[in-house]
């Protein structure tokens, strides 16, 4: 069937050209750069060297990675807990208000995230709105110190990344077949069991997609820890940025990026290997 091959070749060629130019080449550049040196006159230059990777063997980088991992992990979990019911409810709505409600979720995010973060600051700071209300109502005496702590960073991350959890889950839940749920109930499963054994596994692709889209940016974002967290600790995003901008050490920054990629890819591969019995693993 010649026409079949036309479309397939057309798609594949476009995809490969694009991916080659804008995914593979930049990535290769990064890998190559990580083995390079730098000096006063050039950002990236020969001789090739392993020193960048050798420098990585430092407990402080491991701690920075851990911290970013933990904060990104907690944010993802919270986004999941908050976002899943929300996505579920909207996706299962029959009404024609559905797209409207979805758009209503997205519109706030077309406002610059920086400005919204400042609005968050205005709410949680010592003289901010939240504290003023709580003090006026007599609930607390001293203002709550939320700003410039890890809690503020979490709030900021969740606030900015929640739609990235909601949207993929939503598109997935929509495909859920009500009949399966009804069948489970008919067979005597209570709501919790239905949820655990039917709904969760069927919406797992959406959950994974959402988690990836939240976790990965959360690992490398830097301005939220800066303005909401008071820049008192370094996360992965700051670390890499500092290498590029302050130390003018692009090879080192590339090395960080390469290692980060490697670690996360390994984690995913481990997950895939562990769940290889599960049919749904074709997702990755």
């Amino acid at each position: 069937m010649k026409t079949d091959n036309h479309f397939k070749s057309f798609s594949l060629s476009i995809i490969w050209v694009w991916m080659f130019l804008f995914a593979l080449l930049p990535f290769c550049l990064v890998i190559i750069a990580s083995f390079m040196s730098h000096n006063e006159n050039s950002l990236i230059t020969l001789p090739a060297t392993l020193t960048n990777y050798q420098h990585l063997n430092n407990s402080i980088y491991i701690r920075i990675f851990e911290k970013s991992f933990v904060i990104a992990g907690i944010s993802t979990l919270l986004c999941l807990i908050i976002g899943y019911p929300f996505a579920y409810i909207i996706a299962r709505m029959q009404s024609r208000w559905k797209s409207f409600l979805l758009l209503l979720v997205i519109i706030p995010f077309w406002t610059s995230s920086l400005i919204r973060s400042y609005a968050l600051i205005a709410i949680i700071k010592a003289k901010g709105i939240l504290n003023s209300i709580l003090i006026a109502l007599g609930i607390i005496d001293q203002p709550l110190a939320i700003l410039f702590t890890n809690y503020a960073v979490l709030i900021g991350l969740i606030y900015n990344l929640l739609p990235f959890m909601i949207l993929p889950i939503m598109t997935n839940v929509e495909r859920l077949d009500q009949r399966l749920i009804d069948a489970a109930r008919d067979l005597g499963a209570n709501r919790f069991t239905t949820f655990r054994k039917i709904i969760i596994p069927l919406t797992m692709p959406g959950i994974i997609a959402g988690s990836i889209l939240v976790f990965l940016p959360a690992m490398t974002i830097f301005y939220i820890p800066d303005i909401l967290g008071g820049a008192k600790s370094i996360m992965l995003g700051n670390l890499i940025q500092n290498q590029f901008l302050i130390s003018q050490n692009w090879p080192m920054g590339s090395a960080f990026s390469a290692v980060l990629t490697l670690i996360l890819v390994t984690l995913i591969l481990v997950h895939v290997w562990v769940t290889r019995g599960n049919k749904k693993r074709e997702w990755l």
Partner: protein
Amino acid sequence: MKFFLRFTFLLLLLVSFATHAADKVLNVYAWTGEVPDFVVHMFEKETGIKVNFSTYDNNEIMYAKIRTTKNPGYDVIMPSSYFVDRMARQNLLEKLDKSKLPNWKNINPNFLNPAYDPKSEYSSPYIWGITGIFYNDKYYKAGELKKWADLWDERFYNKLMLLDDTREVFSMVLMRLGYPANDRNPEHIREAYLKLKELLKNVKVFSTGTSVSIMIDEDATVGMAWNGDTYRASRENKNIHFTFPEEGFVIWVDNFAIPKTAPHKEAAYQFLNFVLRADIAKEVAVAANFPTTNLAGFNLLPDSIRNDQTIYPSKEIMSHAQFQTDLGDDTLALYEKYWEELKMSG
């Protein structure tokens, strides 16, 4: 879906027609908030040159762009002191032809031939600032904060704001220890790092961009800040004051420069000359609340600003100021290493 594609294609066509290069154009790439809009508009009106104005908020990004691209397309840039040093040495800057800058004479001689540009060949000074101590007199009295060393005091536990800038903070500690701000000696830097570790528990927040609102809203009541920022804060909160620490303080200067690859050099010179005009310099100083390097402009300022010790301190005080020079990659890497350890030790 199809509609979108057609629509987008049409728009793309329209845009490609619209973005033909204009004849008289100038691409300015400057520090955010330091060149007020009206200056650009006045320049456009008087010369008929269209200005494309972009901004950046740290030198490193500007530097990265100019360095990596053969033709970034910028005609005027605004490197800070030590970046002029570095970029000149790497042959990225045009040697200024003073004959094209008749208003050069307006510059305050104190800012000519500085350590970072010994013959003032590459840079035209614009505004400057000093890093010192700010405090809120609702909580502290003026006498309590005279030296950098005072910041280490126990009663400032979790109250300080420090600039989120590796160099600034290290310069501060080096000066506290009696070393020059541009010290490259690894031993001294290590000492500084250890001293800094002791200071950490007093730090409530590191910030450069949000300093002013932090000062006004009293999120931090004492710490490190630029005199220009402190002055602006004091206009909205009368309790904010500035001190020039006794051990010494760093002075930075933002300068205009012309990259070697500038496509519109003539227009660039016109712009540089324009901002050196006395009346323009004065308007900028009033609008941006930053101290100006332009003597003729300074002389036109109203007394209330001219005599303000925060932004125009006396000569005696100024003699303690140290200009920032380029430290070289090795020292920067050392700073960065200690900075990371510092922030992660909390």
